[in-house]
């Protein structure tokens, strides 16, 4: 990035080739729309290029890059919430950070859903159902393999808050993915539903 700052455009090409795939995948998992993810990724690269003169190597380049990407994704998700949400906006609002959005079809007949869709799609939808900040934390932790300090910088929170956020996110995923990670879960769910 320092070479890009110095006006070396070939170094920008190097960054583009190196980070395009992780960036597009991260954004795709955040916004769940390929075209939007690619548009956002382009915007992120453009913002990196525009900000090259002001770049100060106080943190890792990836931290800076994913901070820009996360902000872009969160803005996009919030702007398009009305179109993207799969549950009614009239439904009671739940604590954004403590509980995942409900996926009604999955919760009621999750076993049937598993038959209709493949596991990967099921997992992707479970990730997408997480509140945005939990989702970003999980994606950066699991797929980008960032350390806690880096993720905390990207999400602008403390290390302790991040660990708590990650725990809640994985706990939500554990519940969402219960049919995959806990074979006895559907039976328990049925038991709870019966009077």
């Amino acid at each position, binding site marked *: 990035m320092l070479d890009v700052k110095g006006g070396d455009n070939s170094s920008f090409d190097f960054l583009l080739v190196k980070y395009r795939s992780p960036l597009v995948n991260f954004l795709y*998992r955040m916004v769940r729309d390929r075209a939007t993810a690619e548009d956002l990724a*382009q915007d992120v690269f453009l913002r990196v290029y525009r900000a090259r003169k002001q770049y100060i190597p106080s943190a890792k380049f990836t931290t800076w890059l994913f901070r820009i990407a996360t902000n872009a994704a969160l803005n996009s998700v919030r702007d398009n919430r009305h179109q993207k949400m799969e549950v009614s906006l009239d439904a009671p609002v739940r604590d954004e950070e403590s509980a995942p959005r409900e996926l009604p079809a999955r919760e009621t007949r999750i076993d049937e859903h598993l038959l209709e869709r493949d596991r990967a799609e099921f997992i992707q939808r479970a990730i997408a159902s997480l509140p945005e900040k939990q989702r970003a934390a999980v994606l950066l932790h699991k797929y980008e393999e960032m350390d806690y300090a880096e993720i905390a910088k990207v999400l602008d929170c403390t290390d*302790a808050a991040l660990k708590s956020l990650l*725990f809640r996110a994985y706990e939500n995923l554990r519940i969402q*993915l219960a049919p995959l990670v806990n074979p006895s879960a559907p039976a328990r769910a049925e038991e709870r539903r019966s009077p």
Partner: protein
Amino acid sequence: MNCEKLTQELITYLDGRMHEVERRETEEHLRGCATCRERAEQFRRVWTAMDEVPVIDPSFGFDARVRQRVAAEPGRNWFGWFVPQARLAFSAVLLIALTVWIAKRPSGNPGTPGPMTEQDFNAIKDLGVLENYDVVTKMDALSELVPAVDQPTQNSEAEPTQSND
């Protein structure tokens, strides 16, 4: 180590980033607590399941579009070095305007000369006389001579009057 403490540190433990002493304490707790052990195991399964999510490739024209947008960015040419930044240019213009305004502003200071009157003009007109060295040097002598010449005349005229009375 208890269940609540483990909740805070479970991710660190599963990541393998826990210090040795804490790791041993955690493992000891997990051996004795079926709930935490089950949760830790299910977290591991969640992580394994997440590996099944496919990786997508950016579309064929992605790089080209980014490069195109970057190329369309207004770049600074070699003469850009001479072009001042907007803030600097604004400051300079403001400074010049302020200087011009102060210079043209009518002064309210009584010590400075005001508009010239006719009396001042006459005084200045006679300045040449005062600057004449000969006139100035003889001024004192003249002031002494005038009463000396006039007094006897007046006295000579008064004395006969008094004497006549």
